[in-house]
């Protein structure tokens, strides 16, 4: 049992480290290091521009999307090299937020299902951050129940005509392309009548309306489709096989282990180490210590769970559904941590403006962003279902609509 690199891994790490030291936008390092969930902004720069520039620089030197094949803009690296890169990239990795969906989900789906010429055209600029992609799956009627979606695609000659609405689409307002899941046959059970496409977000008939989130920010959107035309060659996978295509997309998410999920614990520990309460330092208070210890072992448990997963990766094993625990544990933990950090501030905890709040309002920002973490990419409940069914082998939920044609499923309350 050890944490040491193999000689090849060590050599790779050294090369990556040297390149990052020479090329990363150092002027933002401190600010990025201090940013946490809900507050990743740069005071004197547009973070999207800084992120795009960093991504482009990586791509030009062969450090973008490491595990992708070279001909599509990647480096052809092993999964473990990708993890090493993420470790070395450190706080600069926080600049990749806007690319996560494109790189983690859209790219791999394109790679598995797009035509060769499309892969060569679209993937390199996706890898280099010149083009940003979004994922158009969720709808008012289909979130957890993705297959309940109603956006229609109808064939018209060599084109498909799209009508309907997507929602919660992260980054749609600055995206160039998107992958889109639609219904092509409402007369068969819901999983069997779906088809996947990719499209240009500037196509006529696509309308993006930013949604103001509970946190006050606007990172996701409603997207309306009115007679949007998509050529058939932009179809991904077979007609009516979109469910299987989307499963590939979702499974690829799991490969994103290793970067480390944020739990809020290091921030809280730092805070308590310097905070003075009415009767002394917070860190010497019995109740505070107990809370901290409980979160400390969750945070370290997650850290070493991901080290175990990385070890399995380096032996060539594939990440399994057990990796769902990271988001499940971290999501509610960060929410609880933020709540507690504000509790420690007493009445002052209510002030959230960066100019007036403790620590520039980082815990307030965390608190307001945390609910989304527990919902995006599968809710806590869906994560527990995944663990129960795919790891522990318990029966699937009873699905009353499984064999019913989609257009015969009752629609009450479906938007």
């Amino acid at each position, binding site marked *: *049992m050890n944490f*040491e690199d193999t000689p090849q891994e060590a050599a790779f790490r050294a090369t990556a480290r040297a390149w990052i030291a020479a090329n990363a936008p150092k002027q933002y390092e401190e600010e990025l290091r201090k940013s946490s969930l809900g507050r990743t902004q740069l005071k004197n720069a547009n973070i999207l521009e800084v992120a795009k520039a960093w991504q482009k620089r990586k791509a030009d030197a062969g450090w973008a999307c490491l595990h992708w094949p070279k001909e599509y803009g990647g480096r052809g690296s092993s999964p473990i090299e990708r993890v090493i890169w993420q470790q070395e990239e450190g706080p600069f990795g926080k600049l990749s937020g806007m690319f996560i969906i494109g790189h983690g989900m859209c790219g791999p789906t394109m790679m598995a299902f797009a035509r060769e010429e499309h892969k060569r055209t679209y993937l390199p600029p996706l890898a280099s951050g010149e083009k940003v992609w979004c994922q158009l799956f969720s709808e008012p009627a289909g979130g957890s129940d993705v297959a309940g979606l109603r956006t229609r695609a109808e064939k018209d000659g060599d084109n498909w005509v799209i009508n309907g609405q997507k929602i919660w689409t992260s980054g749609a307002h600055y995206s160039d392309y998107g992958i889109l899941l639609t219904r092509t046959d409402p007369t068969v059970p819901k999983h069997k009548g779906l088809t996947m496409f990719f499209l240009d977000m500037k196509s006529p008939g696509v309308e993006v309306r930013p949604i103001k989130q509970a946190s006050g920010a606007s990172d996701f959107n409603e997207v309306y489709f009115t007679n949007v035309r998509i050529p058939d060659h932009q179809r991904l996978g077979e007609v009516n096989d979109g469910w299987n295509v989307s499963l590939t997309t979702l499974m690829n998410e799991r490969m994103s282990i290793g970067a480390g999920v944020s739990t809020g614990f290091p921030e809280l520990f730092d805070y308590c180490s310097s905070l003075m309460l009415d009767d002394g330092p917070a860190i010497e208070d019995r109740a505070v210590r107990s809370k901290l210890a409980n979160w400390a072992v969750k945070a370290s448990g*997650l850290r070493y769970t991901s*080290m175990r997963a990385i070890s399995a990766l380096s032996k060539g094993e594939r990440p399994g559904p057990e990796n769902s625990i990271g988001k499940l*544990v971290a999501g509610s933990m960060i929410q609880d941590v933020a709540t507690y950090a504000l509790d420690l501030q007493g009445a002052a905890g209510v002030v959230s403006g960066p100019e007036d709040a403790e620590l520039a309002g980082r815990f307030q920002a965390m608190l307001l962003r945390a609910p989304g973490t527990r919902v995006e990419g599968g809710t806590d*409940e869906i994560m*527990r279902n995944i663990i129960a069914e795919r790891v522990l*082998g*318990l029966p699937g939920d009873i699905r009353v609509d499984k064999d019913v044609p989609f257009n015969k499923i009752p629609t009450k309350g479906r938007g």
Partner: protein
Amino acid sequence: MNFDFSDDQKQLRDQARKFLAEKCSPKAVRVVLDGKAPYDKELWKGLAEMGFLGVAIPEEFGGAGAGHLELCVIAEEMGRANAPVPFSSTVYLAAEALLIAGSDAQKKKWLPAVASGEAIGTLALFEGKGNPSPKNIKLAASGGTLTGVKKPVADGAIADFAVVAARTGSGGRDGDISLFLVDLKDGGVEVKNLTNLDPTRGQAELTFNNTKAEPLGAAGEGWSILSQVLDRAAVLCAFEQVGGSDRALEMGRDYALDRIAFGRPIGSFQAVKHMLADMYVSATLARSNSYYGAWALSTNASELPEAAAAARISATQAFQHCAKNNIQVHGGMGFTWEFDCHMYYRRANAMALGLGSLSYWEDQLIDRMRKKNAA
């Protein structure tokens, strides 16, 4: 990075699992639980023959000379099987204290006897309420004898020798405590059995009355040795707790698949599924923290104190969580004496207290993290 046990170590784990599945069935555990024997002598002998008792004891002292990682995988299986033997007292506490502080003669006398299963050892630390602390030690040493009462002492009634923490100075400082070795078969100690939460591992009260004792380690070094012993034992116990958590989860899962209510397996109800998923989550976090502890223990890393406390807390919580929800999944059946759920519930809650309670280790963890951050 290879943050995992080696293939050989995994093989040893399989070997131990197979052996225990055969020799330590729930039925065998019940013989001790029902008070028909103080521990499973046959099993103890078998463990010695398999080389499990001396796995981390150097060859020159009669052990297998393998190491602590090997001991960790065996510990996990001891916990999974809920083994009714004085393994933790003898192997993690008494033997480790000897390994850390014993003279050559002391090691030669006791370690081969531990490895061969002839001698059961224990640590006599507690004196009633309270957690490990120099202040809580009143038992006094003078002129090579000990006077005072220790309780609870795990496996104290069946032990052949005890490592005893005694006061050799007058304050409450670390340096006022020294360790002693006492041969319990000499007859100088009065032993009383105590009824306890987990009868598969006995607890006793030991009364020392001018009892002859020999020093273990240098005078005044007792507390520093004890902290090392407790840290090591915390990691090893964590593996037992991880094994117990896994077993409790497995029992719950199996029952959920088997039991039908409202026309379907209860494991198809989401409330039950989610309860089991949460058990899996805590068992997994505990396992990962324990692996870190194992790494620190086996490499004698400076992180050991922090890693040990984290493993201890995480594994204690996981075992308690899995054991209590295993009963819940079993419904009324889970609350019968006949079903095995309560054995794990008992063990989980007894183990939560044995090396100092959760709140003690929470304190330790935060102190240690602060120290590390300051450094």
